[in-house]
């Protein structure tokens, strides 16, 4: 039977990613270490 898999599973460490902010800044996920970070992903389309 088929199974749905995700590349990164719960409990695993996120790589250090940097994304561009809409205000022109860079947002680095590692800068949030020490805090609980909730990420909400959406799209304008």
């Amino acid at each position, binding site marked *: 039977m088929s199974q*749905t898999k995700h*590349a*990164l599973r719960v409990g695993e460490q996120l790589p250090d990613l940097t994304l561009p902010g809409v205000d022109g800044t860079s947002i680095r996920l590692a800068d949030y270490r020490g805090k609980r970070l909730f990420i*909400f992903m*959406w799209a304008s389309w």
Partner: protein
Amino acid sequence: MWQQFIDEHPDAFAFLSVAVDAHPERAAEYARPYRFPTAVDSANVLGRLFDFDVVPNGLLIDEVGALQFLHIGGFYLSRPDGRQQVEALLHADFATGDRPAHMSQESLELEVLRGQLVYDPQNSDLLAALGDALLREGHGVQAVAAYGQAVELRPDDWSLAFALGTARRQTGDVAGAVGAWRRALSLDPSNFTVRKQIWREEHPECFYPTIDSEWQKQQLAKEGYKR
């Protein structure tokens, strides 16, 4: 809605909005009214990392950078349980493994599958995977419904009919189980596993307390079984 939630929980967590959007200028327009930061993932870096192709999604990263919650597709704070779910995550003690019960790995898998099905309700693979997960968690009646939909979408797949039978058996519906297994056997007449499941229900005396191999040989000949 997110801005209000953030304002109601000052210092409880950091929040990042990520627009999975090929048009950063449009994302910026949407994000402008809010005070929380918004990033644009035009290159779909997160999509590849988490293997998703739908939004909206929610995920929680703990204090040491580990993923603790992932909900792909259909994640809305406005859902009846959305706010409660996020609040539970903000207070969960991940260091001791004290994750809220409804967010166990198994429940998370169900959430993910249900979220994907919101966007792709005719996907028989997803329905079958949902049936598998439900059956593992002991939700036989719901598993029957999921497999039933998958069978309707792929009526010629013996494995789905077989799974439907197994789920029905778990709910105590023996006649329904045998019916589904007979359907599976008609689709794959050489399948010995399916055939034996039917025999076990219809001739339990040949399987308990010992397996009567001689009876099985005679039964195979009687049924005209050919490999």
